[in-house]
């Protein structure tokens, strides 16, 4: 559905209002009510210059930025849109609702919840649509998550055309690290009508960015550059109208079909653009891809999907999910990313885990630290939608299948959130035993997806691996089906590979043989454990044979790194004979883990904790107090102890015993405070003393802390605050905790907290540093 979009937009509003005498420090949108004529004058000037769409003076008109103005969003937005409409009426141009960033950061970069951002944007969109805006222009965005919130809000509130532009800097990314490709893929998926760039750069600097966007979207591309950069002393911009128009011709050749100006441009710029003849750009085929903000993965080669984040058969992960411990998931994600995965499958389905809250939570936690695109793996449509909403980028969905119920519930979600989808070749009758029947289901899924508006390249087919020891003839059928889907439908294929060898000895032999055959049959997206060397070696070799690895570079590099004297992962080497205590003191993680495994053959778990781990940590702690070792070394020791603890925990879990539980405490950075590395450092060390820590995160409201304390019967709460402005929140949290019937002990710390202050707000303990926190915790739990 092609909609009629304007080709020539307007120029700067802020620059013009300043020239018209707007007082510095004024919230520009309030002029819609206090000085409507000043705004109208600017808009009429753009209309006269030839703009076919003007943006209303509503850029910052949202609930947060207008909070202290005394006006509502509805008042400011409808006044702004009304002015624009009246001015546009002269020539029949369009009047756009202009929507900018909220001015605070959305999770996970900041602490504004995603749905709160959507709510704030909905308010703006509704006011704009009610006032009769002809289109919505979301612009100057930097964070892809926030941009998604705005587009989702627009789509859920109105059916107006949505133009979206983000700001990129000289590194070719937005301030939050989003690439032009990721932006284009994500926003086209969400249903934007045009995408592009505005602000931050002059037109010349924008050329490579526009080119990259064009290569990643079928939509019209927008360029609304600044007139260069302002001089810090005079405030004047460096590019004049003629230079601007000349550079815009180059931008047009790079693919910008919709043009206008941002900061520093004025009606003369638009007038010059209106007289300029622009070349048309070519439209190369776009192809398929999925992405996160920082990484766009095209599906035109072999792409490894990491399978590890799936609790089936993984005790440690099951436990982490039951305990709400997303750190462990993030760790697994990082390990797979380091091993060379291109995408990560995320499955948190396990009895006792509420997928609807856990899947989005896991997605946010992983995306805060890992760049790879994710494949959301769930059979629960509600959990799928919750995760798709918050996923920053274009996700893959695992999966839909040939069952009517599945097609009906999953495909609309895939379409709405612009994801790619894995189609499993099974239906109401189960998994067919012939390749032909599986192909028929693949075809049906494809047709239904196309009918739902999902592009062909976003449909991936999984022809399903069955266990060869149980159904031997099925391996050939799977391979045949992969070949048919590849050749006849031209679709990407996915296969969970390792299932093939279940129940056989030397599983890896069978798994790699099957993987090689499947890749030959056309498999492009194997779901595997990327931490398995044999598998990744095979894939590296395959990429050489298909020519994907040009000049065998990646292959050569992979094996150049590999040498017998390869250093251990933590980059440190240990002498041959070393005690566990020594390994911990020296911060040797690998060694500490190995020595624990060895020690567990002869010694009891808790004996190791009491006699080796704790004393080693204590000695390091004392040296830290004496200034003989420094914080990072103390932490290295703690992490080496953690490696030992992991082994001990695993050993206990195998015997069905609970972990080494020396007591559970809550840690949180108080409301309003976002600096939490200090708190996280304390947690790392406490955990390695065997304490369980429920980490409530940063910017945590008092009520959340009180509720958790009450529900879990917590006896010790640790609070941190970094700034003087957040100390009141700390005081309030302590006050509320102390009002409980059975109040917990409270320890507080942080850069500006003092002993006296701690006492004055009723905290039981002041922890001046991480060592102190350990001593206090041990006093509380061990008397």
């Amino acid at each position: 559905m092609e909609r009629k979009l304007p080709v020539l937009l307007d120029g700067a509003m802020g620059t013009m209002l300043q020239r018209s005498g707007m007082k510095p420090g004024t919230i520009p949108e309030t002029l819609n009510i206090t000085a409507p004529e000043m705004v109208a004058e600017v808009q009429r000037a753009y209309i006269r210059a030839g703009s076919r769409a003007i943006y209303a003076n509503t850029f910052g008109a949202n609930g947060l930025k207008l909070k202290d103005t005394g006006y509502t969003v509805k008042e400011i937005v409808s006044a702004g849109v009304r002015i624009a409409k009246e001015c546009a009426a002269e020539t029949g141009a369009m009047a756009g609702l202009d929507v900018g960033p909220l001015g605070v950061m959305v999770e996970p970069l900041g602490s504004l919840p995603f749905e709160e951002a959507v709510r704030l944007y909905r308010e703006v969109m509704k006011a704009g649509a009610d006032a009769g805006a002809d289109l919505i222009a979301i612009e100057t965005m930097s964070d892809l998550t926030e941009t998604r919130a705005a587009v989702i809000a627009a789509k859920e509130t109105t059916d107006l055309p949505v133009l979206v532009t983000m700001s990129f800097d000289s590194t070719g990314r937005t301030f939050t690290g989003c690439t032009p490709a990721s932006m284009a893929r994500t926003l086209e998926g969400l249903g934007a009508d045009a995408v592009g760039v505005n602000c931050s750069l002059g037109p010349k600097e924008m050329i490579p960015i526009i080119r990259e966007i064009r290569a990643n979207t079928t939509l019209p591309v927008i360029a609304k550059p600044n007139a260069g950069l302002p001089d810090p002393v005079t405030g004047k911009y460096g590019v004049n109208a003629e230079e601007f128009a000349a550079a815009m011709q180059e931008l047009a050749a790079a693919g910008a079909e919709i043009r206008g100006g941002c900061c520093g441009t004025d009606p003369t710029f638009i007038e010059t653009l209106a007289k300029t003849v622009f070349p048309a750009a070519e439209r190369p085929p776009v192809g398929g891809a999925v992405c996160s903000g920082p990484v766009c993965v095209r599906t035109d080669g072999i792409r490894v999907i990491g399978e590890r984040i799936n609790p089936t058969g993984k005790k440690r992960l099951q436990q982490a999910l039951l305990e709400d411990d997303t750190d462990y998931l993030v760790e697994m994600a990082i390990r797979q990313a380091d091993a060379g995965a291109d995408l990560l499958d995320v499955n948190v389905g396990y009895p006792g885990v509420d997928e609807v809250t856990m899947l989005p939570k896991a997605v946010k936690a992983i995306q805060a630290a890992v760049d790879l695109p994710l494949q959301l793996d769930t059979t629960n449509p509600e959990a799928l939608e919750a995760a798709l909403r918050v996923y920053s980028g274009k996700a893959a969905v695992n999966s839909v299948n040939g069952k009517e119920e599945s097609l009906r519930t999953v495909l609309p979600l895939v379409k709405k959130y612009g994801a790619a989808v894995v189609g499993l070749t099974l239906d109401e009758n189960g998994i067919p035993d012939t390749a032909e029947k599986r192909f028929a289901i693949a075809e049906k899924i494809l047709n239904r997806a196309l009918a739902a508006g999902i592009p062909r390249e976003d449909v991936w087919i999984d022809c399903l691996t069955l266990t060869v020891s149980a159904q031997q003839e099925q391996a050939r059928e799977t391979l045949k089906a992969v070949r048919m889907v590849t050749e006849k439908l031209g679709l990407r294929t996915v296969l969970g590979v390792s299932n093939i060898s279940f129940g056989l000895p030397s599983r890896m032999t069978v798994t790699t043989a099957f993987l090689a055959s499947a890749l030959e049959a056309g498999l492009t997206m194997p779901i595997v454990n990327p931490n398995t060397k044999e598998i990744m070696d095979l894939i590296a070799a395959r990429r050489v044979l298909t020519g994907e690895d040009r000049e065998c570079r990646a292959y050569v590099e992979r094996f150049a790194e590999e040498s017998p004297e390869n250093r251990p992962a933590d980059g440190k080497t240990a002498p041959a004979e070393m005690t566990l205590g020594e390994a911990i003191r020296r911060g040797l993680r690998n060694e500490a883990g190995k020595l624990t495994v060895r020690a567990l053959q002869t010694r009891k778990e808790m004996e190791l904790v009491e006699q080796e781990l704790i004393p080693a940590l204590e000695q390091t702690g004392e040296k830290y107090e004496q200034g003989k070792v420094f914080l990072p070394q103390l932490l290295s020791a703690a992490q080496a102890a953690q490696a030992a603890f992991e082994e001990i925990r695993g050993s206990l879990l195998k015997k069905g015993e609970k972990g080494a539980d020396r007591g559970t405490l809550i840690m949180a950075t108080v409301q309003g405070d976002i600096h939490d590395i200090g708190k996280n450092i304390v947690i790392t060390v406490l955990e390695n003393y065997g304490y369980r820590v429920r980490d409530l995160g940063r910017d945590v409201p008092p009520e959340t802390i009180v509720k958790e304390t009450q529900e879990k019967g917590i006896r010790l709460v640790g609070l941190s605050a970094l700034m003087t402005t957040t100390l009141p929140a700390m005081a309030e949290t302590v006050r509320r905790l102390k009002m409980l019937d059975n109040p917990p002990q409270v320890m507080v710390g942080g850069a500006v907290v003092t002993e006296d202050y701690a006492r004055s707000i009723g905290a039981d303990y002041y922890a001046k540093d991480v060592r102190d926190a350990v001593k206090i915790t041990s006093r509380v739990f061990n008397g």
Partner: protein
Amino acid sequence: MNGSIRVPVDEALRYMRAAGAEGEIRRMAEETAETLESRVTPRWTWRTCRIERGREGIALPEAGLTLPGTLAEKMLAECDAAALLAVTLGAGFDRLEKEWETRDMARAAVMDACGSAWTEAACDAAEEEIRQRFQGKYLTDRFSPGYGDLPLSLQADFLRALDAGKRLGVTANQSFLLLPCKSVTAIIGLADIPQGAKIRGCACCGLRENCEYRKRGKTCGT
């Protein structure tokens, strides 16, 4: 603006209370500095504005800002103009630090110190840019909302005056904390006569109560 300023490793060590340390800890700091320099770009923006003196304090009418309190008055006593400045390592730093908190908390702690030292170094570079632009003028010490009696609540107005949201992607939250975490705003007075150092030393420092250097009878050196 942005620049290829190096991470000052010695400063970072000082922030870790490991001033002058050699060996493993220095090696960690150097490696971390290298990682940061390849992945993160410090950015800054600044502008100048005229100073007027009113009843409520120092006014910067072009920026729509009023600076209440004695610190601003003292610092800008001999100035007819001031430069406003915002510096950030960007959201990329926060992300990287989060990643390392999961990978290796020891390295994350080093990274945090490197980030703080680097932000200061970027402030120095921006200040140098201002100095170059105003040859013949004398610059006061750099100071920021939150110093002395200059309220932290000015952060939002500082960011607005600098258009720091658009230019740098810097925001302030409801407690006036800047995000991305390694971000700083500052003001530097411009005068026609030499300006003595006024802001150095423990008396001006918000951390003096808890400072480990002070407890040991030392200073951190600034």
